[in-house]
């Protein structure tokens, strides 16, 4: 079987691709569920029910969606300009830690914006440095951002077992909590859902507008598609990539800040179940489209929350959620390929 490039890209196919990918992922995952001895239809029903079927389920899914939108945007923004930010996980924790630290200093009504800013700035610093190193010395940012994740996580451990440790936490390694006035208001009473969701959706819309309508958006796309042509056209390459790094790192840092202020109230080393890495999956599933990121984040979050409940009820390992998202990603990559190529006759 051989492939040839399609002359034009059809919009129908581009929109169909993620749906096909998800469908394929579900079919394969269904096979795996059957293999583990559980009734497939029942499992599917339970996943849906646990993700959307009740007030609690829905708010939990949306709570999980919130950080994924932001880390997904961080990856999408960076990848569009060919800045390979694999460090959203580290930027997330950096943002979270900066928020917890700042909360000890800034009191009162200013706290919420100040803490979010602190989180974003931490994320910015963690990405701008690797990108600057690439521009100046040609250091591969895939390596630096990936390795920074481990450094940041270890630094967080150091902080929450040391200078930021909560003395009232019965010996659990977690940071001093954020004061109540700096916690994000709830969107729905008696749930964990908070206004962070609104902020994340607004961020996605904002990124979409910047991408689509601004000079920076055009230049970032040009720089990502062809650096030599962008340079010839006078696009300030370094500035564009550094601005991209600020945007991407800031979004990932903000995700950490919002997770601390909205859900946990403190930093611990299990704050993120891989939100940074899953953000990359979300961005790819969304085809790097900022608005698509919202849907992709919702899909991934629902799958994780739903599979959790399903596995408790049917004793199917909850790893099935990881397997399904991974399958969806693989299927998506194949589907993206087929939007650009077709089987040669």
């Amino acid at each position, binding site marked *: 079987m051989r492939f*040839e490039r399609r002359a034009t890209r059809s919009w129908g196919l581009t929109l169909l691709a993620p749906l096909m990918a998800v469908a394929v992922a579900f079919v394969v995952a269904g096979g795996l569920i059957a293999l583990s001895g559980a009734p497939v239809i029942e499992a599917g029903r339970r996943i849906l029910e646990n993700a959307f079927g009740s007030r609690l389920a829905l708010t939990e899914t949306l709570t999980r969606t919130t950080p994924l939108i932001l880390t997904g945007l961080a990856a999408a923004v960076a990848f569009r300009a060919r800045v390979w930010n694999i460090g959203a996980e580290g930027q997330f924790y950096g943002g979270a830690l900066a928020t917890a630290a700042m909360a000890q200093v800034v009191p009162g009504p200013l706290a919420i914006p100040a803490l979010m800013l602190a989180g974003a700035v931490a994320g910015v610093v963690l990405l701008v440095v690797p990108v600057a190193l690439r521009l100046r010395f040609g250091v591969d940012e895939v390596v630096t951002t990936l390795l920074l994740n481990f450094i940041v996580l270890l630094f967080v451990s150091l902080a929450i077992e040391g200078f930021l440790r909560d003395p009232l936490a019965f010996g659990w390694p977690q940071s001093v909590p954020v004061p109540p006035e700096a916690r994000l208001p709830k969107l729905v009473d008696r749930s964990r859902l908070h206004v962070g969701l609104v902020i994340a959706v607004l961020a996605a819309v904002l990124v979409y507008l910047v991408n689509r309508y601004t000079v920076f958006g055009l230049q970032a796309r040009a720089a990502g598609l062809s650096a030599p042509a962008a*340079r010839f056209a006078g696009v300030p390459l370094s500035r564009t990539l550094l601005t991209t790094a600020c945007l991407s790192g800031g979004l990932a840092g903000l995700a950490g800040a919002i997770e601390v202020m909205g859900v946990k109230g403190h930093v611990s080393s299990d704050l993120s179940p891989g939100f940074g890495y899953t953000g990359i999956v979300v961005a790819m599933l969304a085809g790097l489209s900022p608005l698509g990121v919202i849907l992709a984040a919702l899909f991934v979050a629902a799958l994780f929350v739903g599979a959790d409940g399903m596995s408790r009820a049917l004793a199917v390992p909850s790893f099935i959620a990881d397997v399904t998202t991974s399958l969806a990603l693989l299927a998506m990559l194949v589907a993206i390929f087929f939007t650009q190529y077709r089987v040669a006759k």
Partner: protein
Amino acid sequence: MEGISKRFGTLLANDDISLRLGRGEVLALLGENGAGKTTLMNVLFGHYMPDSGSVTVDGRPLPLGRPRAAIRAGVGMVHQHFTLAGNLTVLENVMAGTESLLRPASRTAAARAKLAALADRFGLPADPDARTGDLSVGQQQRVEILKALYNEARILILDEPTAVLTGPEAEGLFAALRGMAAEGLSVIFISHKLQEVMSASDRVVVLRAGRVAAERVTARTSKAELAELMVGRRVERPRKGDTARGAKRLEARGLRLARDGRQVLDGAEFAVHRGEVLGIIGVSGNGQGALADLLSGLGRPDAGAILLEGTSIRGLGPRALRRLGVGRIPEDRNRDGAIGDLSLWENAVLERIDDPRFSRRGVVRAGAARAFCKAVIERFDVRGGTPDSPTRLLSGGNMQKLIFGRTLSDAPKLLLAAQPTRGLDEGAIAAVHGEILAARNGGAAVLLISEDLDEVLALADRVQAIFRGRLSPPVAAEGLDARRLGLMMAGEWERQDAV
């Protein structure tokens, strides 16, 4: 090949084409860009599966769509863009794919001897241990040919073999091809250059719009006839009229630049006046690329002055230059001139996005940008795209028209055109030449950097040759012949009298 048809989407690239190639024959496949030459050869080599038709080699039908079968049947192809691994040696490249992966050690000694014998027999010298990435383009092409011969090719296909070669290299190549034909090999080469078709082939098949337009024995045809057959109508390149040469626009003095420890520019000096075309001609690699980069705002000379109307523009970037009235046509349009995955309008305004017509407070004025692009498309006859379609769908000629169009819309004082017709077909060349002369007649100063003798003689008012980073004194193009230019390009100007 019998009745080959191949369709891409709505485009019928090959429409019922039949082709015969004799033993020991050199066949030229002539046609404009997009006439279907490369598609046809890719069918023969098994890269493409034709929609209908059949291929027979030595009386045996060739399984279609399978390069491996084609190679086994003795078909070898040298692509326009080489398929060598730059990090391997010549010998390793030649051997690649010929041995089973299961064999524990490769038989280098035998391969080395076979390669040396081939190189000797066909006059294609190559150092088997050189790293392929370090070789010049001409040498890499030799390696490609040797690789095909090593695979026992008896039919050799070359896709636009001279597109990347200098004059003497091309002559060497054709001499080698003649030698192969004399030994009973058959050669097909794809070209759209009439000169080399006339001088190197036995027979010519002219393709036009996917069909065989004509077939001629080379000895019994003429350049003029072939040109007409190829384009389907008479094409004449525009001729320059007289203009009054005006005041000095651009002046460069003592430009020096070192790159990677090599002195690429070594005291280059020239001046371009209003209403004239100054042609800078030279064999590629003598510093004209660096010169174009400096004048395009992509670098700063180590020493020397660049003055636009008496004011220094040394070290200014692309945007500042454009604002001062410098229009730039890059040497490599696919790499520097346009971005294939952006739309036409985005490519049209990218370098002038700082213009208040196209952006305000950081927001792109897409309406104005689309209107600008539409005007360029109409005025410069860009075909095959709308402002919103992706630029990669344009043919080379139309992409170049878009680049010329956006640049000339600024009515630049100085037009810098580097290799403006490289890889274009006859019709597009005529259009580009027309634009260059129109700019000159409109009062622009034009600096034309080219490797094409005919182009420089047709367009330039004065000519300077570039050789090892130095420029000859200017000579009037009037009455200049190719022989004298050739000597100048070889750095022999000291013995000539400058005008």
